[in-house]
């Protein structure tokens, strides 16, 4: 049944992706309302679909790439809706909604061929570990986008050129605030995720688990994250240097994701 809901979600994300372009670039209030309505509806069905998917056979943990993609899309949509609610701007939907659409297209086509299987999948700690880390990914995507948009808006204001197609950009202060808030959210997610993961590893495998390349890379990224937060908060770093820092941490996080290939235990795609 969750596949049916997911297909509905894909259609709704598709519609939301089109309407957000008209709503944001055309700055039409009617389309803005329509886009928000469709997005909320998509989020609702997506939550239903994810709940059904995770409740399937009572495993509560995403066990394959399709499930992970779908979960990540749901978290991206959640962060987007939180931004709309807090900052009253739909602009981030231009990136978030098409991304959510793309992430859900493949999972909606069918079931995973390969799934991660372990007796741990029914552990609540594993659920916390994965969900918290995925929240960190979603938050960091928004932080990076906000930093990039900040840069574009800053250049636009400095160059004193007013191309009409950039009128939709939110104010600098709003983007800075979004970048900072999502960064903190991501940090909380990452810390919680690593903590939960470490507990499971310590419990199940002992110290040898920490020799896994993915694990120590994760701690390196966490260290980078702390460093970036400290620098941004203490110096009020904005603009180009903030983009560099956010990009660095984002690339490091992608590396951790990619480290699945070299990991002996984090292999979602393994047969």
């Amino acid at each position: 049944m969750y596949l049916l809901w997911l297909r509905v979600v894909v259609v709704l994300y598709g519609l939301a992706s089109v309407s957000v372009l008209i709503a944001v670039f055309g700055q039409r209030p009617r389309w803005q309302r329509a886009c928000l309505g469709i997005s909320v509806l998509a989020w609702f069905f997506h939550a239903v679909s994810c709940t059904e998917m995770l409740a399937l056979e009572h495993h509560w943990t995403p066990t394959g790439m399709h499930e992970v993609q779908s979960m990540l899309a749901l978290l991206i949509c959640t962060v987007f809706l939180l931004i709309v609610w807090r900052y009253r701007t739909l602009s981030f939907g231009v990136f978030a909604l098409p991304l959510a659409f793309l992430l859900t297209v493949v999972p909606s086509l069918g079931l995973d061929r390969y799934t991660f299987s372990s007796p741990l999948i029914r552990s609540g700690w594993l659920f916390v570990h994965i969900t918290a880390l995925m929240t960190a990914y979603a938050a960091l995507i928004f932080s990076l986008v906000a930093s990039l948009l900040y840069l574009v808006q800053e250049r636009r204001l400095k160059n004193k050129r007013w191309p009409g197609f950039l009128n939709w950009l939110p104010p600098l202060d709003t983007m800075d605030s979004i970048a900072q808030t999502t960064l903190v959210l991501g940090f909380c997610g990452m810390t919680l995720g690593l903590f939960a993961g470490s507990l499971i590893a310590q419990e199940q495998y002992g110290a040898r688990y920490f020799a896994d390349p993915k694990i120590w890379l994760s701690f390196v990224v966490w260290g980078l994250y702390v460093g970036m937060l400290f620098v941004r908060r203490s110096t009020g770093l904005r603009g180009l240097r903030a983009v560099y820092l956010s990009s660095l941490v984002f690339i490091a996080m992608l590396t951790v994701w990619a480290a699945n290939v070299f990991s002996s235990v984090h292999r979602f795609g393994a047969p």
Partner: protein
Amino acid sequence: MRILLTGLNHKTAPVELRERLAIASEKLALETRGLLAHDGVREGLILSTCNRVELLVCHEGGDPALPAYLSRLFAVDARTLQPHLYEYRDAEAVRHLFRVAASLDSMVVGEPQILGQVKESYTTARSVGAVGPELERLLQSAFAAAKKVRSETRIGASSVSIASVAVDLAKKIFGSLEGKRVLLVGAGKMSELAARHLMQQGAGSLLIANRTHERAIDLARKFNGHVVRFDELHARADEADILITSTGSPEFLFRAPHAQQFLQRRRNRPMFFIDIAVPRDIDPEINRLEGIFLYDIDDLQSVAASNLADRGGEARHAEVILEQELTRYHQRVEALDVVPALVDLQAAAEEMRLAELRRNHAHLRGLTASQQAAVESMTRGLMNKFLHQPLQMLKAAAREGDAARVEAIRSAFLREAGREAAGAVEFADEPAVELEEPLKPFFSKH
């Protein structure tokens, strides 16, 4: 009832004449009452702004001679006034009013004040009883059309004055101006205007630095701000988020090293510099620093000019919306014109009555003249009694402007009456009924 609109505006009359015709808001009610008392005027409204004076009236019968009324009211010679006046009647008057309310006829197309001014005139006219059903319907439709133009186009979205462009730019940087601090360096008229705009938009507090300390104190009192001594300017400038300069200094007051210090003290929080002085007070090089945004008078003017050009494009879109709204208004007015419906309804009922009399002609032939008159009177009385309620309902619906109810009553009764009449005629066409000798006076009509 006919609609007439007479007046002059910035396109037809110079300011010297317009200022003679301006009506102060406290006198508007009195003058509207005077207009209502003018010959032939049933409903009326006066719109008086700095760019236009217009009289809008609903009248019956002949022309109410509004130019003569204007001439008398403002004590301006009719020959002086006449060449500058325009006059629109009925559909053209409606179109003009719609364009005025939607700010398409304004000096600065899309400016938001005009709709408020039209609404104010309407409220005043209503308070003195000068707004009847005709004007009510017209003005409500004009307000709805103006609102639609505002919400469906971006005609008023961009700023076209220097001060409002400055406010817009500040919002692009800081989002909300709530709690932001403005520093005014030099106390010129332009900088004062920009500061006033920023304060009106919610800026938190105002600091003022001026070479003449007394002038700074005067201005601080006016805006409830604080004075900064001119020799402390560089030490305290970083307290401000927005800095407006307009001094007569021949040299730059702020250079890149100053701005770097400000940023350091502000932990890189952005600063917005507005330099409206000529010669300039701020070195343009500081715009290169990350977190510093500098706009001089030319920059502000070029943004305003580009926004004005954008409004031209939006105005074309607005005209299309206005045409649709005008069509809707006229359709509504036509629907509410119940006179043809009343005539049709009476005619259909009369036709039914005659058909019934024709059908019963054979039985009535033996009646005496007085009995025939009684039958005539009785059927006519019945018809009138039957028609009374639907006719009253039609008139009431028209009075309340309920076009849907008018249409419902019209279709129900006219269709019914038409069918009844047709049925009666079919009956009358049966061979048993022959119309040999007409009944009098009823038959005298055939």
